[in-house]
Every structure is written in structure tokens, then in C-alpha cells.
């Protein structure tokens, strides 16, 4: 070992930052698509009858069973079969969004199920219209319930996006490999790449933390609603509500 050469990282900083920017871009687009699709999936699961719920379970079990790298390659080689010839970047984003939609769908469904019963009705009882009830009573609570698990899932999304390097999408991991090919300095390359991922994750967690704080006493309220969570997260006994 010959010591850590910072100048290597400095020399390739443009490359690495391009990669990081691409990762941010891919993550943001995939998040929006996956979350949007997750909402659809979650709402579908509330349709009457056993079929929609069973469909959501099957959908999520299948996607939770298969490694993302394989889903990515199936989509990558499968889309041309279906007559779609898309760029690697688009394929990667679609595959990642599709893969994550199952997870977001489960989170969204859980947040809806966790709403205390009678909230909508009590809003209606004071004379709010259905729309007002949603805006003033339901939505704020949904956001609180959704934030913490969505944050976790989004951190996973950031990390999982590194797999896109295997289909030559120029995100952070890929650019790290390019740098490694040019410099034969794995230590510096992967230290820089890890550091950037770490920063991206920490940044995302920080933003999410701010949002959670802005949402007020979200966590306390959530704990109180959920005795199971209280048993994990709180040192006080949950209040008994009959």
C-alpha cells in the first residue's frame, strides 16, 4: 500500500460528480414514478373482493423475491421483445420504478390502513365536504404515516440504483468503475464513490428529518396510534384505548 492519493480524486472529481448527478436524477425520476404507481397499486388493493388484494400480494411477493439486478436485465432484454427500443437510461429508470412500486404500494396501503377509524366520519359530521375532509383531516395524517417508511425506502432506492451501472448507465458506481479502469487505484475510487453515496443518503435523511419535524409531532402521534410501534420506540406504556 502506497498511501492515499487525494489528487487522483481531485483529478476525477468532474467524472465522479457527473455520476453523482446522474444518480440523483435517476433516483428523483424513479421515486416519482414508483410512488405514483405505488399509489395506484395501493388504491386498487382496496377494491371490494378478494381478487385485488390477492393481486397486490402476488405482485409484491414476486418483486420482493427476485433480485433487482435480474429484474433489470429481464426488462432490459424483454422490452425489445415487446417492440420497445428504449435507451439504457430509460430502461433502467423504468425497471427501478417498476421494482420499487411494489414496495411503495405496500407502504401506502399500510399508511391508509393505519388511519384511526372514524376520522373521515368525524370530519363529515362537523359539516366538511368529502374533499375538505380529505384535505384537512385525512391527508395530513397520511403524510405523517408515510414519511418515515418512505424515507427508508428511498434510501434503499438510492443504493439500489447502483445496480444500474451493470447496464452501462453513467451513474455514480459506473463512473467509479470508469475511474478505476483509468487509474488502477481501487482504494481512491471506491472511497470517493462510497463517500458520495454516503453524502447522498445522509442528505436525503436530513431532508426527510426536516419534513418530519415540519409535520409536527408526527412520531409521537404515530406511536400513540400504534401500540406495536410504541412498544419498540417509546419508553412509556402505550395508552389503552378501548
Amino acid at each position, binding site marked *: 500500500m502506497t498511501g492515499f492519493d487525494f489528487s487522483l480524486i481531485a483529478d476525477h472529481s468532474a467524472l465522479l460528480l457527473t455520476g453523482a448527478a446522474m444518480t440523483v436524477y435517476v433516483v428523483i425520476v424513479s421515486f416519482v414514478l414508483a410512488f405514483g404507481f405505488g399509489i395506484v397499486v395501493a388504491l386498487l388493493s382496496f377494491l371490494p373482493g378478494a381478487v385485488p388484494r390477492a393481486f397486490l400480494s402476488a405482485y409484491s411477493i414476486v418483486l420482493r423475491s427476485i433480485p433487482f439486478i435480474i429484474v433489470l436485465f429481464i426488462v432490459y432484454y424483454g422490452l425489445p421483445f415487446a417492440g420497445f427500443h428504449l435507451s439504457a437510461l430509460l430502461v433502467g429508470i423504468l425497471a427501478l420504478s417498476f421494482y420499487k412500486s411494489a414496495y411503495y404500494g405496500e407502504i401506502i396501503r399500510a399508511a391508509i390502513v393505519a388511519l384511526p377509524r372514524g376520522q373521515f366520519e368525524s370530519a363529515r359530521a362537523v359539516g366538511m365536504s368529502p374533499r375538505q375532509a380529505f384535505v384537512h383531516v385525512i391527508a395530513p395524517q397520511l403524510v405523517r404515516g408515510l414519511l418515515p417508511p418512505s424515507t427508508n425506502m428511498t434510501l434503499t432506492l438510492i443504493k439500489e440504483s447502483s445496480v444500474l451501472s451493470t447496464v452501462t448507465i453513467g451513474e455514480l458506481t459506473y463512473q467509479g468503475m470508469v475511474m478505476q479502469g483509468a487509474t488502477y487505484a481501487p482504494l481512491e475510487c471506491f472511497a470517493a464513490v462510497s463517500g458520495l453515496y454516503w453524502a447522498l443518503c445522509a442528505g436525503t435523511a436530513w431532508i426527510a428529518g426536516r419534513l418530519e419535524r415540519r409535520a409536527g409531532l408526527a412520531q409521537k402521534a404515530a406511536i400513540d396510534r400504534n401500540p406495536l410501534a410504541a412498544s419498540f420506540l417509546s419508553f412509556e406504556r402505550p395508552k389503552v384505548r*378501548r
Partner: protein
Amino acid sequence: MSASPVLRVQGLSKSFQGVPVVQSIDLDVHKGQVVAMIGPSGCGKTTLLRCSAGLERPDRGFVELEGQPFGHERHGAEIRRQSPRQMDRMRPKVGMVFQQLNLWPHLSALDNVVKPQVVVLKRTRAEAAERARTLFTQLGLSAKADEYPYALSGGQRQRVAIARALALDPALLMFDEPTSALDPELVAEVLAMLRSLASGGMTMVIVTHEMNFAANVADRLILMGKGRIVEDRPARGSVK
């Protein structure tokens, strides 16, 4: 009395999945009355309450609030369903205190009372907050205004729910099983509060299955069984 009753129910029937729950109920509640509706569980008292509050549509029959049709409209001889929007406008006339209270956990106690005033009655925040604080003082909640529901005791939560209903200046206050979600030692507290509301002239309908409680608080007892009114008589412990 020449004035219209606060609540008039006429020939009201409601079934769920073919099972009749409430059958041809007629009921008038006049201003200032405190009516306790008692009966075993499943006798239809909660359904009657919910139909009167416009939370369920009756299959047959009509509800009127202070002489105004609620849930239906008369056009000459023709009777139509009232539009949802019109029903939303009428609903604040009935203050409903749910069995589970259904406070909004994301809002402070004060905001639970302020929000509906602002959203539904279009009061300004300042007006709404003033009204809420006045009610909180009356109900002994002043110190708890900024607490969130999870930090309140069962009795305090119930008082917030009552304040939320009262803030909309309802003509009628309805309680669904006000004592069932509370610890037994709090029942006396609820009783005292209901009495003070009654002495202030509030018209109230209280659904309960506790005979003792009903007899203590109400000046009129309605006994229900199998979806019908079995008995309607003055209560012994009439507070006036």
C-alpha cells in the same frame, strides 16, 4: 309550543343488508330537552342517532331540524333526496360526540376546535380561536389548549370533542355512548358536565345503555327494543 321541534323524526326505517335495524320511528325533541335513549346493544339506537345526524340515509322516513328538512327536500307533493352539499351545510346544526370521540390526532386540542369553524363556517382564525378558548374555559380545558390528543386523558379528550361540537353553535348535541370509552370513575365527571350543559339550555340526545346514568341526566327517557320505541316517559331525575 308553537315553535318547530329541534329534531323531528317521522316514520324513519333503516335496514342493513336486508335486516331491519330501525322501524318506523316517530320522535320529536323540543328545545331544551335532554333525552336519553336507552336499550340493549343492537336495538337500533345508534342507527337512529346516526340517521338523525345525517351520517346515514334512512330507507324511509324523514328528519327535520328546526323545521327544515334534513336529507330530503319537498317540491310540492314530490319528495327528493337532498343534495350532499346541502346536507353538509345542515350538518353543523347537529353536534355529534362519537363514542370513540374521533379527535384528529394531528391537531392540537385547540386546533381540533378551531379547524371546523374555519373550514365549515368560514370564521376567521382569530374568531374561531376566541370561541374555542371561551369554550375551553367553560369546560376547564384552558391549560390543555396546546396539547395534542395523545397527551390528554380520556375525560379531557371527551371535553375537547364536546367543545368541537359546541363551537359550531349546534341546535342539538348528540352523544353516542358517552361513558363507554371512559374509566368508571370519570362517569360522575361526565354527568356533571352534561348537567351543566343542560342547565345552559342545550338540547341533547344521549344514547347509552346504562339505565342509571340515563335516569340521572335526562328529563325524558326513550326505551328502545328491536328497532322500535318501546316506551317514552319523563325521567325521575329530571334536572329542571
